């Protein structure tokens, strides 16, 4: 399970991360169903109990930090469902993770057309 290669600014979602993040990702997967989204928004703590989120995962969600959610085993494809529900777009998330303003992050994307 050990990750043998480091890629800058990137968490490889290998076996170890998949095991660590299982509960969090399972909860996010449940958000495909609108009834579950409603239940989460109505009582987040109870919903996290139901999916047996770890203390680290709860703290990551409470902090709102996507980098912490990834560290707690969250996977981008499942976290996207949570982000969507909270009204965050991919540029908002990109800006947050890179420590930029949303405008600066959008500019960074545009600038890469001139590589």
């Amino acid at each position, binding site marked *: 399970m050990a990750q043998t*290669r480091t*890629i*800058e*600014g*990137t*968490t*490889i*979602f*290998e*076996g170890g991360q*998949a095991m660590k993040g*299982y509960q969090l*990702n*399972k909860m*996010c*997967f449940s*958000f*495909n*169903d*609108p009834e579950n*989204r409603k239940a989460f928004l109505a009582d987040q703590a109870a919903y996290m109990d139901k999916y047996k989120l770890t203390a680290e995962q709860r703290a990551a969600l409470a902090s709102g930090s*996507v*980098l912490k959610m*990834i560290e707690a085993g969250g*996977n*981008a*494809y*499942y*976290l*996207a*469902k949570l*982000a*969507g*529900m909270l009204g965050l777009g*991919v*540029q908002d*998330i*990109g800006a947050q*993770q*890179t*420590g930029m303003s949303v405008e600066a*992050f959008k500019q*960074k*994307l*545009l600038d*890469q*057309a001139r*590589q």
Partner: protein
Amino acid sequence: MARIIGTLSTSHIPAIGNAIARGQQNEPYWKPFFDSWPPVREWLAREKPDVVVFFYNDHGLNFFLDKMPTFAVGAAAEYVSEDEGWGIPTIPSVKGEPKLSWQIINGIVEDGFDPVMCQEMAVDHAITNPLLLMFPDAKWPVSIVPVAINSIQHPLPGPKRCFDLGRAVGKAIEAWPEDKKVLLIGSGGLSHQLDGSRAGFINKAFDTECLEAMVTGVEPLTKYSALDVVEKAGAQGVELMCWIAARAAMQGEVKELHRTYHIPISNTASAVQLLSHTRAAETAKAA
């Protein structure tokens, strides 16, 4: 016998579906991407494919980490577009082509692959967006066969394995005794990364290398590992595997009919590429 008439590869960025739903195709941000489609649609109207085989990746709609297949082939009579959780509209269901599904499954198992076989499969934006781009009226004149490639849980199948998968699928399609025209789709990409402090990473040089290889042949890309692709194309740029598999299925004469590459759509380097295919035996006959 069935014929592979070409490969249409396209980005499937979720925001495309939302832009279609909001009618934003002519807004300056969107125009460069949507303008690539009319010539593709003209070609589709002329060539009239019967079946579309999608090489795509599921984004946490049909598959979860409890059972995550490396490769999965749909064998359903109908595929349903379902709620993905973040607001993209669903589309009308699309018919399957079970006979071709089993032809592909039988063929690739014979060739050493171990696919998961799915008689029910919900399909996400990786299939719905390309369908809407091809047929904006949402009246599908084609049936489909989805071939899913894991892009979520590492270890991912790398370029070499996906190349071989594409070869095996292509061989199975061309051995199908039905007189049908089959279009392949490589869905996803190109370079992009959504997660981590490298979010927003785009690599125009690598994308250009890949787009060129799609024309001349994707064998040279098989020198890269899956992690090489993560490094060069970004964490979600691994959707490139779908392009590689689709291109590898074509072994005859390939011509590039259309290419659009535009940075950015959302956080992604978007691309649309249409390749026509005449199979080796027919090229020889014509000569």
